[in-house]
């Protein structure tokens, strides 16, 4: 990655798009320091988190992460998945952790007996919603979503996108890598196009989707809209 610079204000939703191998996931993993960037600085709420004396685990509680492959803890049920960070990291009591976990699960539509299901007993869409609840329950300042729907069967994508939309509308600060153009157009304040480790173009969704300036962006959007069966001309 070279010369990537971006800024998200509180309550904003930004979407990163671009071809695979372009550094999108790497960028997200750098932001929550799963990968230490070789150089450069990252600030969260005015504090530099890339400094020498920063406690990684403390920084990460402030940054939620939603994984492409959900990465739910396989040996814990939905409720326990959400609770684990609350009891072990936030040191909350069993009771208040349970209450908050149940509330977070309710927000993503996991209710009733489903909260006692284990990951292997849940559909991909349900697993990803638990994954979002797990991140939300920690009350992070920003939520990073790494292709949250690309490992899902097509009919399960909608339920996860609805949760993400709801999240964006309720004022969460989000940075998402996704190929879901519809979602991006609806909720993103800015679209960032990344390829070969650099941001080639960024802007308001309407601007970027309808009048991309760079040929690289045009080519990528062309192939994506072809896939989804809508051409840009149709929408003009």
């Amino acid at each position, binding site marked *: 990655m070279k010369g990537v610079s971006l800024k998200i204000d509180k309550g904003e939703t930004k979407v990163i798009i671009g071809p695979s191998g372009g550094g999108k996931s790497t960028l997200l993993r750098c932001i*929550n320091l*799963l990968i230490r960037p070789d150089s450069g600085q990252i600030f969260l709420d005015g504090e530099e988190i890339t400094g020498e004396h920063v406690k*990684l*685990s*403390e920084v*990460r*509680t402030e*940054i*939620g*992460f939603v*994984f492409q*492959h959900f*990465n*739910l*803890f*396989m*040996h814990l*049920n939905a409720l326990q998945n959400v609770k*684990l*960070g609350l009891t*072990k*990291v*936030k040191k909350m009591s069993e009771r208040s952790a349970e209450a908050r976990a149940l509330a977070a699960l309710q927000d993503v539509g996991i209710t009733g007996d489903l909260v006692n*299901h*284990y*990951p*292997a*007993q849940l559909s991909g869409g349900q697993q990803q919603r638990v994954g979002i609840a*797990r*991140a939300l329950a*920690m009350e992070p300042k920003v939520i990073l979503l790494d292709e949250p729907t690309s490992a899902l069967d097509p009919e399960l994508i909608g339920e996860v996108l609805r949760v993400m939309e709801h999240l964006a509308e309720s004022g969460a600060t989000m940075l998402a890598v996704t190929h879901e153009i519809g979602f991006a157009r609806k909720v993103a304040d800015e679209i960032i196009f990344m390829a070969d480790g650099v941001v080639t173009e960024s802007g308001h969704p309407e601007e970027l989707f309808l009048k991309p300036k760079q040929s690289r962006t045009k080519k990528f959007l062309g192939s994506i809209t072809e896939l989804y069966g809508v051409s840009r001309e149709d929408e003009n």
Partner: protein
Amino acid sequence: MAILDLLIQYWPLFLQGFETTLILAATGFLLGVAIGLPTSILETYASKIVRWVAIAYVELIRGTPMLVQLFIIYYALPQLGIRFDAMTAAILGLGINSGAYQAEYFRGAMQSVQSGQMDAAISIGMTRAQALLNVILAQSLRLVIPAWTNEAVYLVQYSSVVYLIAVVELTGIGAIIGSRTFQYVAVYSIIALIYLATTLFIVKSSHSIERRTSIPGLKSSQEQRV
């Protein structure tokens, strides 16, 4: 009725030998866990130099016969001024040997836990130690049960080599009773049956532990076998 007569006359000796075998296997196993588990964690997560030390231990132990290791502990170390009684030497030998094998079982199990599990644990703010304990070990200890079963069975049976450093366990008792009665067929039949029953008991118990700790929705190794 040779077997029955033998049992009536010698059951306290058989029992004593069996008891010694169980003590050797159990303490050897526990010492093996105490050595193997930390070793596997060091092999997987420690810095390069520490990792090398852990790997060196595993390879050294696996690369030499257990009997040689026992002889070193019981016969060679005293020449250097380190002395153990036969039973202690036997337990140390079994434990140190088992530790190396168990380290490899644990390492394999830890590596088969998906890497995303560690990422997820760390991303909610856990330290690596917390993640290791609450997520990685919680899953890998379940995966290691079949290999653990093998190790327990192995220790029950191969603890008989300590006979050669003068610890009298079940096999050693057999030799003693055999040389007194000359009824080798009966004596070793009894002993073989005791080993067999113990092994079957271990295998059955481990299946039940595996069933009770299995993760709902995931297939256990037994179901996969069917």
